[in-house]
């Protein structure tokens, strides 16, 4: 069965600093990969996705993610964090069999002024 691991439960960064959120997946083939963001009391907003092609994908709000097959990773990055980026971030994978989305446990990002 596929699984997703987000090793960092909480991360705190200073405003303006760079950010990297880690995501590792377990699946036999190349899955479809997603990052979602959830602000308090809100639903999930899609940041970016990877299906195939260029392994570096750009998303909304200045985020990017890089798919590394050899490491089974899909880490999310942002060069300069803004206070409004404070939220919970979820990595998710779907296989093309059934379209079932499996989420990681999430990483809560806090931004210091």
């Amino acid at each position, binding site marked *: 069965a596929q699984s*997703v691991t987000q090793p960092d439960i909480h991360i705190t960064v200073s405003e303006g600093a760079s950010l990297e959120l880690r995501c590792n997946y377990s699946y036999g083939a190349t899955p*479809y990969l*997603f990052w*979602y963001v959830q602000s308090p*009391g*809100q*639903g*999930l*907003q*899609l940041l970016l*996705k990877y*299906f195939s092609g260029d392994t570096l994908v750009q998303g909304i709000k200045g985020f990017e993610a890089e798919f590394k097959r050899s490491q089974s990773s899909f880490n999310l990055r942002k060069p300069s964090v803004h206070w409004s980026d404070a939220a919970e971030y*979820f990595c*998710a994978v*779907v296989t*093309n069999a*059934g*379209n*079932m*989305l499996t*989420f*990681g*446990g*999430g990483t809560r990002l806090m931004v210091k002024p």
Partner: protein
Amino acid sequence: EAGVAQSPRYKIIEKRQSVAFWCNPISGHATLYWYQQILGQGPKLLIQFQNNGVVDDSQLPKDRFSAERLKGVDSTLKIQPAKLEDSAVYLCASSSAGQGGFTQYFGPGTRLTVL
């Protein structure tokens, strides 16, 4: 384009009571999903519909949870009777057909508190 709509946004009930949640997907999206998100965890799929048929309900506690999508558009998720451990956010999502259908769009969720 309107997003996924859900109501109510919040609901507080006592254990053993019944509750129902409503979801209206993005127009034209054939696939609809219900997720349960317990505090501090990622969402977990409860049930997936393709049009008005069930694709996957393996994670749905069928002794107390039921869901329907009678006309292939909006959907209702019901819990009867509720337990304390059902306190969670219930998220509805939808996706279109084709390869782009792997992208799911989420509604704002319904936060359920069972006392």
